């Protein structure tokens, strides 16, 4: 406590002592000695005052008042010259040695009287609190409630704090885990640097490359402001995004609400008599955050005049810009007076604190090493703006800020009034293209332009509401026509809702759209959920908001009695098979949870990290290889499974970030003697092909050829590979009399070779077979003893690049199926498999192992991959006869009108794949 009190006292005194009156009067903004800034992610564990992430200096004191404003936990307070904080009730905070007992309410009401009845949280007690105290060291108590600050910390180190009041009897002593406290070391600053180097150059290069490409093709930039600061563009309200540059030919793929944030410019096309349109990639606004049907990443075309420069933030509502990445603000770090900003490369806004931050590279006075930190935008607006103006054009050069106090520099900028508002003028719309228009609009060019972003996960939202595709507008959307289109769209969306007529009109029935997937659902994204043992006394592990879980159901009631109370608690299992108990209120279906941010790509993702959902995380036997710094190496696991990846804090990343066998990386540092060694392996720092610095177990890197590498394209033309790993013997071809001669199949004496044919009659002719059955022998090598030789039917793999659109679902006799939408637009059902761990929305590559085939345990047929294919526009020639697996003539139904026969293609592909 003494340390904290000292800190506050020191803060207030030093703040005042070191400010001269001219500074206050002119409201200049500087990084003052003794103040603290937000460190980047790498210093998560490197800060002592972990609960004070929100302490920041607001340099703009009210003119004429000798006081300095600080922001604390999202609220603003003032420190006057006497060093006493004038905000009522706010003085000091005790040490972090308390927590709130279970089921005590944290009241938000500032006076602790509960008049408003509002509360932030109930059932708290999972994290420590700090108790506000008077200058005499007494707790601030009113009406039996003590003023406290609740600190909740997630696994990523991010802190969420709440100010409020808790009944005194609800507070109990609590020892802060030592893991919450760690001194800042110089090495940690190195880690910060490494982290940022891995992170920010990607964002920079993304934008820079886009602009360079653009400038090559078009002498004149299509949008005049594009060269100034590409990261801060928004779109006008009600902007429509089309899938083609011409509104005449393009479908509306999204409607943007106010201040959608542009993430990059990709291309420009001009249409005669319709002006020019720009292809954009954008992040959705937080305004749309709760709409699960809206994609977080959208690539589309907008009219040029729809973009608006945001050269000043004053025009932007505080809650409009929020970026999910890099939002880990935790702890504070001292910065020397006169530190200079030598780079500024990102702005992030956090809705929970209603504030925006700049990530800056600071050169501290007298320090040899630079520091990366996050600074409140408002606090440092002037120097930031100056920096932008002076240095953005020559970003690689360091800002020539002198080591002496730079305040006069900022002071000349003046007060807030000098901050320029956002010019809400439209950029120039007439753009000159040197390429012939016909070329630009050719299908090939269009295909290329539109294909490029297809690897991004922007399709997710579109797929989620496929029935909301809107009609093509009749004419180019002028402002007026946009409104018309909006009305039309609304009507059409009503039509879409009409398709939901099957809904059951009963309050007792919960109906949602999307997969049946339970997730952790907390009030704020970034919070974590403590999963406890059955006694609810001990925390077993924590889960992040949005993490997938499965719920145990007992053979009866799920209610649990703890002490005198009965709780609705449930037993859950996470994706790593950890089991524990949580309150039911924190679990919901994924599509019902508003606090989950949609999936976003990995930083600078080009596919490998996000697209590595192999069915097994099986590192297998380690490889041995001598590795040098900057040497290229290949990820290599013995079974072709994924390789666990750790960030620079040695926190294991989600499975989607794992590396796949065959992925190329660059060795960055192989001397990590003092680093942790998860699972007993020696770890090495690598840079993946997206430029991210990670740690992986050294033993699974090799400089030689990796036998288990995912055989991308596998030598088969067109990027296809046969979906089974063992030749079927053409079991799905009618004239093949003996598809299998393997001895392991001899026990199936009654096997008839044509049973797995597409269209084969079933149920006495009442149905027809929708798949080609790709038979596999028994006795194939199993990845682990969890698979029995009796049921195991070998691996199956993606036939072509694609995306999983339906994860494992019950199929037949205890087997499952998944559905993959391939890059050739063919949608394939891979059936009669083990469920595995491949999840929806994951991209897969041709040849990537998706899982394992499971025998159904019945009859004389061997294990098989039940392989169905569907393609938009294709219809089976025997339509009306063939009915998938449904009964013929039963309400004339069919499995899907897009089912088609791919037997001949499969035959050819099998021959090419296996060379037979």
């Amino acid at each position, binding site marked *: 406590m003494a340390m904290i009190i000292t800190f506050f006292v020191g803060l207030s005194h030093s703040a005042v002592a070191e400010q001269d009156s001219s500074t206050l009067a002119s409201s200049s903004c500087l990084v003052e000695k003794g103040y603290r800034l937000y460190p980047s992610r790498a210093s998560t564990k490197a800060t002592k005052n972990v609960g004070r992430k929100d302490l920041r200096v607001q340099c703009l004191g009210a003119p004429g008042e000798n006081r300095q404003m600080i922001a604390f936990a999202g609220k603003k307070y003032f420190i006057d010259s006497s060093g006493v904080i004038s905000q009522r009730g706010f003085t000091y905070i005790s040490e972090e040695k308390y927590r709130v007992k279970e089921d005590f309410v944290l009241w938000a009401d500032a006076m602790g009287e509960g008049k408003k009845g509002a509360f932030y949280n109930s059932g708290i007690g999972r994290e420590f609190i700090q108790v506000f105290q008077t200058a005499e060291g007494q707790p601030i108590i009113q009406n039996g409630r003590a003023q406290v600050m609740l600190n909740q910390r997630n696994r990523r180190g991010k802190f969420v704090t709440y100010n409020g009041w808790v009944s005194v009897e609800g507070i109990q002593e609590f020892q802060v885990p030592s893991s919450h406290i760690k001194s800042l070391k110089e090495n940690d600053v190195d880690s910060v640097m490494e982290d940022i180097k891995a992170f920010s150059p990607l964002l920079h290069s993304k934008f820079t490359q886009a602009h360079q490409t653009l400038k090559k093709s078009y002498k004149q930039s299509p949008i005049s402001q594009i060269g100034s600061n590409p990261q801060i563009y928004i779109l006008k309200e009600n902007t429509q995004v089309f899938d083609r540059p011409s509104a005449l030919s393009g479908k509306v793929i999204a409607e943007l609400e106010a201040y959608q944030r542009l993430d990059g410019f990709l291309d420009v096309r001009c249409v005669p008599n319709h002006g020019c349109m720009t292809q954009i990639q954008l992040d959705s606004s937080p305004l749309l955050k709760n709409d699960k049907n809206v994609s977080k990443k959208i690539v589309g075309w907008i009219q040029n005049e729809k973009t608006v420069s945001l050269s000043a933030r004053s025009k932007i509502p505080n809650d409009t810009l929020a970026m999910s990445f890099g939002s880990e603000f935790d702890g504070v770090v001292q910065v020397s007076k006169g530190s200079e900003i030598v780079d500024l490369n990102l702005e992030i806004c956090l809705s929970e604190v209603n504030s925006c931050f700049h990530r800056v590279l600071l050169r501290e006075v007298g320090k040899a090493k630079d520091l990366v930190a996050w600074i409140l935008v408002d606090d440092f607006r002037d120097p930031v703006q100056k920096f932008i103006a002076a240095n953005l054009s020559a970003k690689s050069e360091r800002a020539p800020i002198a080591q002496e106090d730079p305040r006069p520099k900022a002071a000349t900028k003046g007060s807030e009034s000098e901050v320029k508002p956002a010019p809400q003028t439209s950029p120039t719309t007439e753009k000159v293209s040197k390429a012939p228009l016909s070329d630009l609009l050719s299908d090939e060019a269009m295909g290329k332009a539109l294909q490029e972003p297809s690897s991004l996960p922007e399709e997710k939202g579109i797929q989620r509401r496929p029935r909301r595709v809107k009609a093509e507008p009749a004419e180019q959307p002028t402002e007026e026509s946009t409104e018309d289109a909006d009305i039309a769209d609304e009507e059409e969306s009503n039509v879409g809702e009409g398709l939901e007529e099957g809904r059951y009109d009963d309050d007792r029935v919960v*109906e949602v759209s999307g997969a*049946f997937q339970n997730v952790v659902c907390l009030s704020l994204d970034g919070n974590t959920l403590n999963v406890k043992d059955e006694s609810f006394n001990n925390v077993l592990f924590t889960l992040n908001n949005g993490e997938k879980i499965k719920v145990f159901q007992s053979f009866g009631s799920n209610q649990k009695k703890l002490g005198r109370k009965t709780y609705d608690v449930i037993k*859950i299992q996470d994706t790593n098979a950890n089991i524990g108990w949580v309150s039911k209120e924190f679990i919901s279906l994924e599509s019902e949870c508003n606090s989950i941010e949609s999936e976003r790509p990995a930083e600078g993702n080009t596919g490998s990290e996000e697209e590595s959902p192999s069915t097994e995380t099986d590192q297998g036997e380690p490889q041995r290889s001598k590795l040098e710094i900057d040497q290229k190496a290949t990820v290599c696991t013995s079974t072709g499974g994924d390789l666990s990846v750790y960030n620079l804090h040695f926190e294991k990343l989600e499975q989607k970030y794992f590396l796949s066998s065959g992925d190329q990386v660059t060795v960055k540092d192989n001397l990590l003697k003092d680093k942790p060694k998860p699972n007993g392996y020696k770890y090495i720092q690598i840079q993946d092909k997206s430029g991210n610095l990670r740690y992986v177990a050294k033993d699974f890197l090799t400089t030689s050829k990796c036998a288990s590498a995912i055989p991308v394209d596998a030598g088969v033309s067109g990027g296809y590979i046969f979906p089974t790993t063992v030749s079927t013997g053409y079991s799905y071809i009618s004239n093949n009399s003996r598809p299998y001669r393997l001895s392991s199949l001899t026990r199936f004496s009654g096997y008839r070779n044509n049973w797995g044919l597409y269209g084969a009659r079933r149920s006495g002719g009442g149905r027809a077979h929708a798949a080609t059955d790709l038979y596999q022998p028994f006795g194939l090598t199993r990845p682990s003893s969890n698979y029995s030789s009796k049921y195991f039917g070998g691996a199956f793999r993606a036939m072509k690049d694609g995306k999983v659109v339906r994860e494992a679902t019950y199929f037949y006799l205890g087997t499952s199926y998944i559905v993959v939408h391939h890059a050739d637009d063919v949608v394939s059902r891979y059936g009669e498999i083990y*469920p595995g*761990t491949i999840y929806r929305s994951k991209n897969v590559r041709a040849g990537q192992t998706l899982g394992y085939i499971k025998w159904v345990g019945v009859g004389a047929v061997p294990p098989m991959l039940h392989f169905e294919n569907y393609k938009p526009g294709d219809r089976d020639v025997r339509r009306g006869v063939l009915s998938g697996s449904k009964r013929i003539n039963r309400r004339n139904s069919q499995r*899907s009108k897009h089912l088609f026969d791919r037997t001949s293609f499969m035959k050819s592909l099998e021959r090419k794949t296996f060379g037979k």
Partner: protein
Amino acid sequence: MKKSYILPLILIALSLLLFLHSKNGSIFSKEKIANKNSFEVSKPIDSNSPSKLVIKDNKRLLVRENEKGQVVQTELSEDEASVVQLAQIFKSYAGTQRNEKDFITDLLSLGLKPVVARDRQEVIEDLTIIRPENTLPGVRYIHGQFDGDETQELQHISFEIKKGPNALEQGKKLVSESMGLGEPVKNVDPKMVLYKMDGYVVWLKELSWEDMMGDPFNAYSKEDVGNVRIAIERDIHDHSDHGS
């Protein structure tokens, strides 16, 4: 002196009853032949239904006609009654026009709270999954999958019963009696029982860890090995047609 005889006699009688009970299994030991009119059935016995679950005097009775045309009543435990209720409901979806809405209605009528998730797809069929939040005594993981198209036709419905020394056999008896199933298909895994029924299959399986690991919907620990899943689903392959 007389009292000293009475107590042992009572104990012997109780032991005998207990022995007979264990020998006959849990559910059909209380089977009685009765007059059809002697029951207060909630509804008349449907001619298409092989059996009826009747609540009388706080007893759960499975009422059916045997091959001789006699009405047979079997007293069921609460857990067994749940299996019968679900099995009878499940049967009504095989080869009939009953659909997803009916399933929701059926679940509601059992006091369950259905959660319905509709997965829309453009190219492949839509899918509706229905799982109640709560469950009936003695069963869990009630799960329904229906086509998301206009037919809302059944793909798969299943639930799970507790493991036990004769769980598979007891489940088989309950299900076959409730659904009026014939002989099971031969040449199947010994820990599985399979019936064919009008384009659908009814199966019961004693779950191994291999069956449970990675289950897309249900959470399992290894303590659950031995539980029995009971399912009725569209017959994709008609494997039973060949190869015996």
